C-alpha cells in the first residue's frame, strides 16, 4: 500500500494499491496539524487494502486549500528557461 501525493509517478510505476492525496509533496497524509484529515487518510488506505481485489488507485476527497496557486510552486521553471530556486 502506498499513500502519496504524486499521482503520475506512482501510476507510471505500477503498484498494487495507491491512495492518492492531492497535497503538496511533503505532506502525503494531509495538512500539517490537521488530525482529522491525517487520520481519515490512513483509515481510507487501510480500507483500500481490505476491499481491493486487484491493483487499485483511489483518491481521497481532501483539498489542500481552496486556492490552487500552490500547484505551480514545485520545480517551477521561469520563462527564461532557468529553474527557479
Amino acid at each position, binding site marked *: 500500500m502506498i499513500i502519496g501525493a504524486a499521482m503520475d509517478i506512482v501510476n507510471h510505476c505500477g503498484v498494487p494499491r495507491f491512495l492518492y492525496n492531492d497535497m503538496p509533496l*511533503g505532506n502525503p497524509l494531509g495538512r500539517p496539524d490537521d488530525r482529522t484529515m491525517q487520520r481519515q487518510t490512513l483509515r481510507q488506505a487501510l480500507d483500500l487494502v481490505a476491499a481491493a481485489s486487484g491493483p487499485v488507485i483511489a483518491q481521497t476527497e481532501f483539498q489542500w486549500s481552496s486556492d490552487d496557486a500552490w500547484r505551480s*510552486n514545485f520545480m517551477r521553471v521561469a520563462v527564461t528557461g532557468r529553474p527557479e530556486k
Partner: protein
Amino acid sequence: MVEPIEYMQRTRRFYEARGFSPYQWAQHTTIPWQQPRKALENSRVALITTAVPDEAVPKPARTATSWALSDAPAHFGTQELSWDKHTTHTNDRRSYFPLEDLRDAAQSGYIGSVAPRFHFLPTQFSQRQSVNVDGPAVARACLDDEVDIAILVPL
C-alpha cells in the same frame, strides 16, 4: 477533482533546464499483487518511510534500515529530500509518518497490531539499488516481523 500535478513532466523540464539528460522513471511490466490473507482487524501493519531517521549517515552511504518504533525521531531528516518547500513544511511528523494514527487504529481494534519496527527506504537515483538491494531488505525485515500489510509513505 482537479487534474493531478504532472510531476514527471515538471521534473524533466527542471533538470533539462540545468543541462541534465531526462530521467527514466521506474515501471513494472506486471504489477505485483497479493490478496491479504487476514482480515484487517487481525493484520499486523508496518510503516515504511523515505524520511531520514539518521542524518549523520551521509546520503551516498544510506541503505535500507529497520528501526524500533521507540527509535523513531521526533523529527526526521527531510531537508535533503525533494518536496514542496515553497508551499509547506515537514515540522508535523504526522503529516508524513502516521505512527500515532496507526497505534490508535490498533488500540481501537481497526487493525490487529502495529509491527515492532518501521523501515527506512533511501531515495535513490539508482533504480538497481532500490530494486535489488533496498527493497528486498525491507521485504525480508517485514517477513521477519510477520507483517501482513506494509504501508509506504514516500515523502
